[in-house]
């Protein structure tokens, strides 16, 4: 798979050709006993060709990609998908097990801010040292020194040993030095969450102006909305392989789709609670009464609860809430406490349904939580808990098919879709 948009003609800054990286799990280095056991072979332990009993992990598998000048590439994927390994191979920290990596020009990799700061040295000394580690000459650092200090807002503390810095000051200095290395390729690994809010804003402003200046960059972040804003190419890595790559509008929906499938797969039956009333299962039905997991936005959904009781229960009050995953704070509720209804009596096994004729939710995975109150409405029979998950997806076609709006709004902001119009 090849990332290839923007300026096809320019020579690539980065080229990965079927790059794989393997790590050995378990003990990473031997002891003298191993050394004595097989001196000659053990001097080159990684080349040992005896049948080995170690377990291996392929952090990258057959990854091919090209980054050309002017491209801003984002990498998405779970923890352990190989994102950091990819950056390490790219920046030369580690060599691939197989495949070929070609990098043209200076790469500034912000894998960790302030790596290499020495606590006993002053901010001033550390600027020089860190700048040199990132590949600047002393002359270049001297020329940018004032600008670095100003960016980091550390004028007053520049001759203080950095061990007396707060963690925010430390990160600011680290970012300021890295931001001034003026690289051909800026690589940023999840380091933007540093410092206070105003400094974070400064970092974002810097990166925005950097990206706007037709520069080349590569970002790794869990914040997909930032990546959507910054990048013109996204690479989705999973278990060391490129699953998909292309413009964010192409990759992100596929990524979300996959994420939601995963979330749905965690579907668990409600925890069985000892008590007079138990919820045995929860299912979601469409208008025709067919059980499904995924519904188009704006469609009717019926939540069907199957219960058993150990004896007759008079007038229990059911409360259900539709929530964002994991939160338990309802976005939409249906409460017998509020509407005053209640089944006259439940006894034995039965089914209770709650129907929403139109659920105006935007596409993502939702959870249903519920509780059941005693007739006296002062204590619960079943406490507030997760009952199940369902998913809202876009219809493939029709007037509600996906628009061109930002995924940020559609995926993160207000999930309830009330009809509206604009006037301007």
């Amino acid at each position, binding site marked *: 798979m090849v990332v290839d948009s923007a300026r096809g003609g320019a020579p690539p800054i980065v080229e990965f050709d079927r790059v794989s990286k393997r790590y050995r799990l378990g003990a990473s280095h031997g*002891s003298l006993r191993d050394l004595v056991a097989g001196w000659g072979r053990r001097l080159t332990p990684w080349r040992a060709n005896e049948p080995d009993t170690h377990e291996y992990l392929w952090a990258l598998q057959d990854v091919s990609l090209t980054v050309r000048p002017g491209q801003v590439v984002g990498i998405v994927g779970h923890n352990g998908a190989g994102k950091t390994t990819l950056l*390490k191979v790219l920046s030369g920290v580690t060599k691939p097990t197989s495949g070929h990596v070609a990098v043209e020009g200076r790469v500034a990799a912000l894998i960790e801010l302030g*790596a290499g700061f020495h606590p006993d*040295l002053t901010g001033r000394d550390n600027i020089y040292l860190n700048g040199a580690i990132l590949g600047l000459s002393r002359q270049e650092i001297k020329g940018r020194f004032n600008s670095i200090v100003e960016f980091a807002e550390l004028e007053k503390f520049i001759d203080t040993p950095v061990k007396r810095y707060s963690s925010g000051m430390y990160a600011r200095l680290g970012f300021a030095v890295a931001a001034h290395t003026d690289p051909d390729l800026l690589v940023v690994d999840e380091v933007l969450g540093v410092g206070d809010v105003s400094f974070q804003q400064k970092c974002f402003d810097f990166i925005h102006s950097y990206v706007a200046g037709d520069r080349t960059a590569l970002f790794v972040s869990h914040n997909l909305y930032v990546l959507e804003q910054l990048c013109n190419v996204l690479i989705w890595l999973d278990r060391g392989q490129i699953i998909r790559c292309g413009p964010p509008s192409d990759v992100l929906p596929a990524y979300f789709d996959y994420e939601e499938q995963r979330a749905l797969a965690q579907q668990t039956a409600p925890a069985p609670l000892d008590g007079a009333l138990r919820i045995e299962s929860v299912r979601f039905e469409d208008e025709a009464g067919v059980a499904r997991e995924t519904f188009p936005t704006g469609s009717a959904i019926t939540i069907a609860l199957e219960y058993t009781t150990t004896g007759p229960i008079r007038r229990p009050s059911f409360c259900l809430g539709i929530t964002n995953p994991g939160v338990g704070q309802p976005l939409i509720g249906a409460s017998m406490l509020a509407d005053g209804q209640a089944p006259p009596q439940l006894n034995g096994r039965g089914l209770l349904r709650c129907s929403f004729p139109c659920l105006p939710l935007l596409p993502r995975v939702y959870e249903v939580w519920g509780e059941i109150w005693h007739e006296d409405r002062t204590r619960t029979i079943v406490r507030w808990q997760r009952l199940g998950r369902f998913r809202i997806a876009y219809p493939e076609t029709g007037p509600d098919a996906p628009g061109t709006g930002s995924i940020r709004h559609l995926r993160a902001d207000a999930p309830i879709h009330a009809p509206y119009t604009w006037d301007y």
Partner: protein
Amino acid sequence: MKQHIAELYRHRDLLLLWTLREIGVRYKQSLLGAGWALLQPLALMVTFTVVFGMFIQLPSDGVPYPLFAYTALLAWTFFSASVTLAIPTLVNNLNLVTKIYFPREILPIATILASLADFFVASILLLAAVLWYHLPWSINLLWLPLIVVVQVLLALGVVLPLAALNVFYRDVRFVVPLVVQLWMYATPIIYPLSLVPASIRPFYSLNPMVGIVDSYRRVILHGSPPSFEYFGLSVAVSLILVLVGYAYFKSMEQYFADLI
């Protein structure tokens, strides 16, 4: 090899700054500061003078024993400090090695260069002693820079392969101080080379520190040039060690980040 040295040269500013860092950090927050660089060989010299010079009355080639011992201790202190401090540098700076690429040999080399700075500080005392004892100035003192270069090459030749090996086998860290201790007795520091039986000298002089220590004594204390055989052997052994050691270091470099 050529491209490695070219890459090292491109990073010369980093090497310089890292060396300054090593020097700066070494004596930060210590009262004596650089005085420690002087105190270490000085304390050993006093001890040796009392024990071996006065009690045992070892011969010292007709030179006052303190001067005899201190000259050798200067070179030895540099060597032993280089080896013990520089070998663990890769492991000690793991957050750098696993996060940022730069030629890794910069870390041990900077530590060796910082030890060289200590060596020069401690040399001031030798200079004072030379003046105090009214030793003659000789044209042969011009050999000194070359001897210093060889002693640095030797330190590099020992440190580079062992620093790389230490990444894979931490045992190295425990073995090295022991070996350095034994090595001192295999070098004419306490006693003169002339006490070593002629029959074992061919093997004895394979120790490259023999030629280096002997050369310092000849040039500074006796005003004569270094011995061709002893010093020549030191040069040859040091060069071989540094070439092989550097090649080994560079071939292992790519595995450092994975194994630390």
